[in-house]
């Protein structure tokens, strides 16, 4: 016997699915397809002639050392942002879960950064850390540290990592807090009676039970760092100094728009798409297995 409810008629389900499918088609598959197509083309500087060159754009891309350097920069940038935004958010969430008294105010304050647009966040941090005028830089300099993100690549990297992390903490915090509140209180109490210190309780009970949330956030954060941090980098460092903070997505933009190499930048965006799809697939396939539900 059929246990599910089966609706006959084909029209209604298609109609109900149509808006979503249409949006996906127009705003994802169409541009993605166009990018793939464009990555096989070479255009002259004035856009007058276009030539189909097969994989030449890719060949050029992978033969250049600076592309690998950008990949390395992206890897460093994304691991730092993902690590710091996840761990700091978790720390905040654990604290918010404890002190219920001021929790509402605390939570509201923590959620605000999420409402700030990436470009604005970038400018905000740029101002604060601007070497000669920035409020924070002045105190850093006063402390005797030669802070200059405009000249020093490591300083610039630190700046964008801080800005991107700060932006993402709110989002991660919300999910971690919800995850923490979903853990039955009696389980924690049982562990306390079982003689586990608060630290041990966290690592042996709370952290494993949070792993579905952590896993979900890891995927979301990686995608965030790969794409959505564009605004921050553009506003704060523009990929500089000397391309020290140029991530893959920023290179797509600078090569395509400023460099005028549409074919090469299309090839880059295809590569970027493949990397993100692959990373997500790997995460689901291997990390999810170890996740405790």
């Amino acid at each position, binding site marked *: 016997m059929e246990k599910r409810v089966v609706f006959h008629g084909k029209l209604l389900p298609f109609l109900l699915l149509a808006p979503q499918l249409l949006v996906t088609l127009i705003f994802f598959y169409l541009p993605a397809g166009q990018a793939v197509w464009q990555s096989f083309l070479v255009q002259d500087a004035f856009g007058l002639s276009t030539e189909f060159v097969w994989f030449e754009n890719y060949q050029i891309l992978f033969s250049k050392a600076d592309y690998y350097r950008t990949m390395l920069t992206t890897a460093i940038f994304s691991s730092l942002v993902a690590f710091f935004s996840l761990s700091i958010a978790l720390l905040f969430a654990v604290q918010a879960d404890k002190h219920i008294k001021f929790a509402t105010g605390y939570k509201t304050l923590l959620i605000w950064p999420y409402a700030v647009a990436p470009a604005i966040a970038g400018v905000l941090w740029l101002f604060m850390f601007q070497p000669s005028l920035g409020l924070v830089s002045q105190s850093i300099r006063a402390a005797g540290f030669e802070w200059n993100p405009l000249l020093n690549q490591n300083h610039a990297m630190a700046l964008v990592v801080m800005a991107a992390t700060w932006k993402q903490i709110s989002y991660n915090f919300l999910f971690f807090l919800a995850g923490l509140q979903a853990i039955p209180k009696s*389980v924690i*109490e049982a562990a306390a009676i*079982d003689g586990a210190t608060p630290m041990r309780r966290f690592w042996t*009970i709370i952290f494993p039970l949070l792993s579905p949330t952590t896993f979900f956030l890891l995927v979301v954060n990686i995608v965030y760092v790969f794409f959505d941090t564009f605004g921050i980098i553009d506003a704060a460092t523009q990929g500089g100094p000397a391309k020290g903070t140029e991530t893959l997505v920023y290179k797509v933009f600078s090569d395509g728009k400023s460099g005028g190499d549409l074919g090469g930048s299309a090839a880059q965006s295809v590569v970027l798409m493949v990397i993100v799809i692959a990373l997500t697939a790997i995460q689901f396939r291997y990390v999810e297995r170890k996740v405790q539900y």
Partner: protein
Amino acid sequence: MSDVRLEGVRKVYAGGVEAVKGVSLDIADGQFCVLVGPSGCGKSTLLRMVAGLETISGGTCAIDGRVVNEIEPAERDIAMVFQNYALYPHMSVYDNMAYGLRNRGTPKDEIDARVKEAARILEVEPFLQRKPKALSGGQRQRVAMGRAIVRKPKVFLFDEPLSNLDAKLRIQMRVEIKKLQRALKTTSIYVTHDQLEAMTLADQLVVMNKGQVEQAGAPLELYEKPQTVFVAGFIGAPPMNLVTVPESGLPGLTLPERPPGPVVLGVRPEHLHEDGASPFGLAIEIVVTAVEAVGAETYLYGALNGDGPELIVRVAGRATHVPGQRLTATAAPDQLHFFNPQTGKRIG
């Protein structure tokens, strides 16, 4: 030796609500003490204070002669079984039971021996490698008990451990808990709202109401000599008939010997007899309104003199009574309970 002694224990919440209003109890070593009462009476709060999961606002709690008010739950040497079992969902049954021992740095081979012994006693050996979600409710309950007994604590605390089980399993587990406690001789405090569970398990039965102890003692002592109207109505199923009788008496109710003034008269359904052969202390005339046959016995619901308060009479076996029928039931003088209607306290 590990007795539990509570002296004037109080719990006041931040909002000023007083959940427990000065409870004093002596629980002897090896005794099975059951706290029973309606929901919100403070029994669970009291248990959680003994466990150390709630702070004690006033009074002292001593385990084994040591005041534990300021001592962490882990240091009190107690084990607790929770209503929802509170098993660690990401650990196997084995790890669930071993967790408390590992935290205390017990040697590995001793952990193994103790877990296996507990698993044998509780018959969960086949499931040791499974996760809690792969177990039935009764099996989870056993694992939760196993987690308590491997530690060999001074005191077991049970917080309504059987209320998530179905009726049949509940009776079975009730018997097993009793046997287990007898075998281990560990002092136990058990919280329940089920008076039958309370009666059958307890060495010392403590009836609580509104944050206070109404009466504490042996179960049958509470049944035979309830000290307050509340205890009288709470212990026993079906509950004791309680009728407020004014000085002038009630129509349909004959009461040759009674304390002066208005009283609350209590008589259990099982002590009312239709034949009335024994020397009676009470005779009532009721009109049957409903008949409940449960097999071994029949409960007759009736109104005193047709329009008075409702009373229940227990008749052994099958009854031939029909609604609308008039009957006279009597009770022996020593089966009657009298309470002060103002204070609710027992008279005599």
